[in-house]
């Protein structure tokens, strides 16, 4: 029988182009902040999990579990350290693996980190590295790009459901407005609709301001058996449900490209475990690597009907004071998207929201929150549902 698991500490670095910080600086900073926040001592730690997408290409370094254990100061304690990879869902998946290890009873307390250092490469290397999450032989070889594949989803969504270029742009406007309130965000400024609409085309119909940026950053959380959580903190947050799913690596391999079945299945499993429905969620951090991705996510997670994601933006139901606030942190779009860090940072944001510590972007009476982390163009997805204890 699995036991309940709680989050007892969180730590974040600022996200952005952090030229004075290395990969190891970033993850050590986030990890120590999480340990301090949790009140545990390092000697109580049973294991360390870290999500990162592509350290091999971004910094020419693999063997990341050991590196992170070492630079977090745990080498002499010889604690097990595990690196987890699932493209842009690496962070969310690391949380899920940490959760399993505590839920199973094998570990009592683990720290889960996520990190990416994306600005140590030059030229096209960062975008080329992100594109390794696509099907290299049957998509990228022929000239498809990461934004290009999401753009093809957007073209079809506009065709099938009448979604408009303005509705896509409004997702960016909303998330920048939220990011302006988040001290950790890469872009702490609101942008007007016209600026998104006339940003240079990346891949029609997506402009540059429809895309999340290249970022450095790290996030970490401490997981603990729920029955012991109150020993360390007054505000533990319980993981009510976790779901994960996969799909074809290539977008063209799917019957319907206007839905991510990986999101649908990961969501269903998380809702089932939590014994909740989409109506029970007060706030969500979803994977808006491109504006169309947020529209797809709110449909596939069941917050709105399929095809009504664009209308939801017009109706303002996803703003901070809307019926279902989406991406109060600013999302990947404005908070930044250091890929491996993203899934863990989403959890940290929801924990802040449920603790009532989210400052100017606090969602009123938030009791239950959801995180949604996607690998590349939907070939993998991880969903978590959290509740304050």
């Amino acid at each position, binding site marked *: 029988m699995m036991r309940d698991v709680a989050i007892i500490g969180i730590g974040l670095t600022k996200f952005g182009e952090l030229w004075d910080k290395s990969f190891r600086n970033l993850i050590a900073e986030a990890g120590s902040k999480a340990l301090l926040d949790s009140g545990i001592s390092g000697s109580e730690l049973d294991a360390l999990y870290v999500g990162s997408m592509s350290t091999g290409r971004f910094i020419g370094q693999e063997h990341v579990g050991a590196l992170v254990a070492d630079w977090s100061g745990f080498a002499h304690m010889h604690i097990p350290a595990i690196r987890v990879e699932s493209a842009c869902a690496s962070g969310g998946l690391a949380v899920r693996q940490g959760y399993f290890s505590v839920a199973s009873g094998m570990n009592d307390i683990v720290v889960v980190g996520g990190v990416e250092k994306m600005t140590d490469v030059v030229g096209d290397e960062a975008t080329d590295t992100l*594109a390794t999450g696509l099907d290299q032989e049957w*998509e990228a070889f*022929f000239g498809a790009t990461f934004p290009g594949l999401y753009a093809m989803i957007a*073209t079809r969504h506009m*065709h099938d459901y009448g979604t408009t270029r303005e509705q896509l742009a409004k997702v960016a406007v909303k998330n920048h407005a939220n990011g302006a309130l988040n001290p950790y965000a890469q872009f702490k400024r609101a942008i007007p609709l016209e600026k998104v609409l006339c940003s240079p*085309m990346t*891949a029609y119909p997506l402009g540059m301001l429809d895309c999340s940026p290249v970022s450095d950053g790290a996030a970490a959380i401490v997981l603990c058996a729920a029955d012991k959580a109150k020993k360390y903190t007054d505000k533990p947050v319980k993981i009510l449900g976790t779901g994960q799913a996969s799909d074809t690596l290539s*977008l063209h*391999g799917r019957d319907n*490209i206007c839905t991510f079945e990986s999101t649908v299945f990961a969501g269903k499993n998380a809702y089932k475990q939590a014994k909740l429905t989409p109506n029970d969620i007060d706030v969500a951090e979803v994977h808006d690597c491109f504006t169309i991705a947020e529209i797809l996510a709110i449909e596939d997670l069941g917050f709105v009907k399929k095809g009504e994601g664009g209308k939801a933006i017009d109706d303002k139901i996803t703003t901070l004071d809307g019926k279902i606030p989406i991406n109060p942190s600013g999302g990947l779009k404005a908070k930044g998207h250091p890929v491996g860090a993203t899934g863990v940072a989403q959890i940290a944001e929801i924990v802040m929201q449920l603790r009532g510590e989210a400052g100017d972007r606090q969602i009123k009476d938030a009791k239950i929150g959801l995180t949604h982390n996607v690998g590349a163009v939907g070939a993998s997805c991880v969903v978590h549902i959290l509740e304050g204890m």
Partner: protein
Amino acid sequence: MTDGAVPRFWREIPQRYNLIGNQCGSCNKVYFPPRESCPYCRRKSMGKMKNLKLKGQGEVLTYTIIYNAPEHFEGQTPYAMAIIKLDEGPKVTAQIVDCDLDKIKIGMRVQSTFRKIQEDGYIGAIYYGYKFKSVEVK
């Protein structure tokens, strides 16, 4: 992704030059690129997957115009990419060429054509494969 040993590209020549897919002997579903077994019939399809040359005819399911391209494609921008549903069933991601970019439409009929896809700098290998052209508009 063009940095690599020649065999990585050479072994895909039948698929990329001639659209060789395969067909499940159990349920007749067609796959491109060919698969080791049919994901639906699984063990029943083992040893029953037969090669099949696809005609290269199909329709555009969706498309985009790429303005920001990887280094090996920079000389081609802006270019159109599409997901094409081939008449035999499989879908592929490929460029649409020989057509005004603003004429491309969802549902447009297309035919495959053998073209240069990318080259590995001035001295590296040149890689060939399929692109598609409209059979309706120029």
